[in-house]
């Protein structure tokens, strides 16, 4: 029963939460700055993705306690993302192909 149950998850010091919390604000500020300074092109995209994944990673690892979970759970949660990665990759290719065909046949002509 509930009262007989042993504590399953170890508690953590409050400091770590506050640290991550602060880091999230800083990272959000940085990604906002990407827009503020109006970086363009590859630099913009890579910075956006970098900050995005860093923030997501921090939230998952510490706020959602994935860092302290056993590998069985972590792996079960992360491997399916390869399917999404594949989907994303192929849709990038597909999007490029579509816009290419549209511009080529609808605007340039001379096919």
């Amino acid at each position: 029963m509930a009262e007989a149950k042993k504590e399953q998850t170890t508690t953590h010091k409050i400091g770590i939460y506050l640290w991550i919390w602060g880091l999230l604000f800083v990272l959000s500020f940085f990604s906002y700055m990407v827009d503020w300074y109006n970086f363009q092109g590859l630099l913009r995209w890579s910075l956006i993705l970098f900050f995005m994944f860093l923030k997501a990673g921090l939230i998952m690892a510490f706020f959602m306690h994935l860092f302290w979970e056993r590998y069985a759970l972590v792996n079960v949660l992360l491997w399916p993302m390869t399917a999404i990665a594949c989907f994303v990759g192929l849709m990038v290719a597909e999007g490029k192909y579509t816009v290419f065909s549209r511009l080529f046949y609808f605007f340039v002509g001379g096919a």
Partner: protein
Amino acid sequence: MFTGLLFLAVIIGSIVFHIWTPWWWTDIASNWSAMDDTIILSFWIGGGVFILVCLFMVYCIFRYQYKEGRRSEYKPEDKKLEKGLTWLTTIGVVALLAPGLVVWNNYIRVPDNAIQVEVMAWQWGWKYRLPGQDGKLGASNNRIISDDNPYGLNIDDPNGKDDVFVESNELHLLKDRPVKILLRSIDVLHNFYVPQFRSKMDAVPGTITYYWFEPNKNGEYEVLCAEYCGVAHYAMRGKVVVEDEESYNKWLLEQETFSSFTAKNRNNKLNKKKFVKINNLSSNKNSILKEQDVR
């Protein structure tokens, strides 16, 4: 006993049906005999596996039918056998896949001397557009389709001026000359399919798709729509005539060109506004296009 015999009959029946079937593909009329070859290859390999597996099953039914008191063999695994079967299957799969990929590679690479033909699909019928003397089709856009401009051609595109309109469901093609079919749809998905040519591809509104083939047999062929496109899908038929140069040219001369069509309709005011919008866009996007011109 009875069970085994009936299953045996099913397998033998399948083989017999396959050998003596009166239902088989139509005579091929294009260069894609390689597709037929890959099908036959799949038949040999796949059919062989089917027969072997089923015969083995029937053998087991006969040989190991239930007998009171008999024990089955206790052998949970046989690593060697399993490994052997894995390799055998892998080899079979590679043998099937490799030729398929080679044929597909040919299918998506259009030869340089191919004639462009635009197939314009609509609910429910076909229209065609051929390039004129310059061998090029003008830019088109469904947005600007109107009575005066049934193909939605950009009037500022010089390539489009001499384009030939075929406003019937009958298309003529030159024998032994590759054609690149450019598929265009103004409403929903369609699919330009002539069984004798083996090849097909969907026409998708909002983009242009293509495939190519080389008709190599004179004759008249029926065009079927092979992608469900609404209630009259089954009635969306057309005709392709493959013929020699002489009669082809005669047919070509009878068709109308874009300029002659516009001349006829000169009195009608064209919708200028839409063209302006389209042209502005095209200059903006030229740079993107260059970047992505991977061909």
